[in-house]
């Protein structure tokens, strides 16, 4: 670090006129990022895609079979169920996390008492791993010990709440746990964003007689664009990778009703010892992410400076 500082000072004296060297320090500082992007993310992705065209089993091998793995993938019911589940889980989780996260942040931002306590309660689940989250919620949602039995104990005998044992709604049982674990952190990110909003804006809004909710929607939220982008990336990257939670809560059951793509990838790669199939599935996941994200990422990060 000390050396770095000295370097910084030396360039400041030199002030090279040539454009190429102007950001030399920034370029040097970005080397880890560039290496990671190129060697790890691109390199490993290419490696994965190449191997998805092979019939690698236990060990990666370059034994090409064309599109066989992809044909099998799209002919597998479990994969189709996984995709559908991910879509449902993804949309609900995205909307709910953003809405809940923002609403809670807005509530906490109203200069309330016990803000620390509330914030801590909302945030602590994020300290726990998905495995733990899944385990605890599996318990609470268990019809024989959990909420259902308690409510029935109060005298409401016909009360039924067993999301983890009903194939039609099991994915929502997982959603309950997922939101519980992750929304607190989104709330904190939003809160950080809200605190960054200039107080003058609120004063101006109040002078103009604009209702609070309108100020939030039309003034504050647009100003918090980068915060929302961060939240969006945090949430969606978590959604695509959802795996541990499902394993801990339902192991994909009942039947295959709560399977998700990342679990398919993992099970095929390691349980079924069919690396090729797992790589094909992950390539499809990546492809869909790229199709959705590239245009957006280009606009968001590739464009000029945002307003």
């Amino acid at each position: 670090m000390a050396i770095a500082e000295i370097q910084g000072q030396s360039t400041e004296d030199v002030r090279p006129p040539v454009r190429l060297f102007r950001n030399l320090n920034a370029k040097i500082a970005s080397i880890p990022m560039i290496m990671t992007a190129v060697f790890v993310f691109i390199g490993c992705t290419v490696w994965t895609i190449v191997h998805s065209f092979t019939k690698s089993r236990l060990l990666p091998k370059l034994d090409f079979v064309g599109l066989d793995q992809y044909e099998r993938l799209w002919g597998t019911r479990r994969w189709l169920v996984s995709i559908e589940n991910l879509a449902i889980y993804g949309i609900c989780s995205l909307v709910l996390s953003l809405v809940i996260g923002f609403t809670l942040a807005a509530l906490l931002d109203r200069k309330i008492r016990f803000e620390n306590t509330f914030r801590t309660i909302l945030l602590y689940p994020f300290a726990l791993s998905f495995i733990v989250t899944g385990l605890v919620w599996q318990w609470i949602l268990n019809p024989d010990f959990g909420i259902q039995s308690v409510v029935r104990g109060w005298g409401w005998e016909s009360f039924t709440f067993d999301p983890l044992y009903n194939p039609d709604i099991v994915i929502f049982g997982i959603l309950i746990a997922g939101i519980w674990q992750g929304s607190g952190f989104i709330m904190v990110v939003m809160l950080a964003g809200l605190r960054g909003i200039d107080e003058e804006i609120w004063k101006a809004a109040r002078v103009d007689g604009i209702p609070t909710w309108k100020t939030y929607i039309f003034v504050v939220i647009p100003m918090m664009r980068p915060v929302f982008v961060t939240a969006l990336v945090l949430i969606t990257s978590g959604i695509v990778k959802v795996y541990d939670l499902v394993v801990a809560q339902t192991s994909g059951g009942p039947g295959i009703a709560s399977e998700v793509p990342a679990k398919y990838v993992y099970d095929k790669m390691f349980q079924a010892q069919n690396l090729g199939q797992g790589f094909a599935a992950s390539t499809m996941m990546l492809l869909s992410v790229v199709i959705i994200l590239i245009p957006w990422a280009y606009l968001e990060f590739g464009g000029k400076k945002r307003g």
Partner: protein
Amino acid sequence: MKTIRTLFAATTALCAATAVSATELEVTHWWTSGGEAAAVAEFAKAFNATGHTWKDGAIAGSGGVARPIIISRILGGDPMHATQLNHGRQAEELVEAGLMLDLTDVAEAEGWRDIVHPTSLLDSCTVDGKIYCVPVNIHSWQWMWLSHKAFADAGVDVPSNWDEFVAAAPALEAAGKIPLAMGQQPWQSSGAFGVLTVAIAGPDAWLEVNANKNAEVAAGPEYAKVFQAAAAARAMAANSNVQDWNQATNLVITGQAGGQIMGDWAQGEFQVAGQVAGVDYTCLPGLGVNEVISTGGDAFYFPKNDDPEITKAQKELASLMLSKEVQVAFNLKKGSLPVRGDIDLSAANDCMKKGLDILAKGNILPDGNQVLSADTTGQIEDLMVEFWNDPSITAEDAQARYAEIIASAD
């Protein structure tokens, strides 16, 4: 350091031929529950007694967790010194890639072919005539466990075979019992189906489909009966809302459920609960129809290592695992059957003795893992777990999809 050690070894070699410099072997396995860990401790104890050190690398969670670790370590060029795997085809590719230690010289010197019983276990370890692993135990899937209390409460006799069990199911239901306890994990669904197949279609049909991959038999009338039976069993298990196999076993122990189709490892649960075979529960091998033992279980593999001393210690460990004393001590703790026919297991309980008896008669079948690739096993598991949990899938549909998997199996 090394020269000193060699020198030291050379001088002491004169004194005692067996005394070698102590080597530390790192052993990976997924035996982490109480009984399992106690069984591993027997290995460790015996190995440490030879002057070497057993370095334990236990990881819970079976193949799905352990396999990436094992493969990564081998790919990373820094493998563990010994690792547990199931009998069967899991390590085929590792052996073919030349990553595993050839144990043929030890096996020949000690005559493994004569002492390992059934010899099919050794065949699973053999690739191109060379032996690459040590089978250590036999676990059979072919059992059904019945609760005496449940049947007494329902006022019917404890069944002695599957048909009687099916006949008793309505009475159990009327008494508020779950006839058949089933966990919801894929391997359990698939395993129970396998046991039903052996009982209903017979061992020959099972072999034809699983070993010879005959899709016609899989689509044929014998298997149709199996799928019908499985559909009926599905209805009987509809109310068993549990995940893990031992939670299902617990339903049987407490008399909430009539029975469970599960491998011999379930026995440990009954023992822990203080139940006595024949008094509190009954075990039916092969569902009381076709009494066989399937020879699944565990084996140890030894990744290749450049250090000759480690290689030597690996071979010592391999031979130790098969020795009489270690086999007895290990299997009694593990609740599994030994892989040698020539040892006395008088301490075994009734159900274990039943198993030993069947084994001695030679009524054995290979385990699914020995004949099917992990990939095919996975596909069957996916199908079975869906079938067992979704009553809208008819037996015919499931059979058609099953036959398709068998047709493309390798």
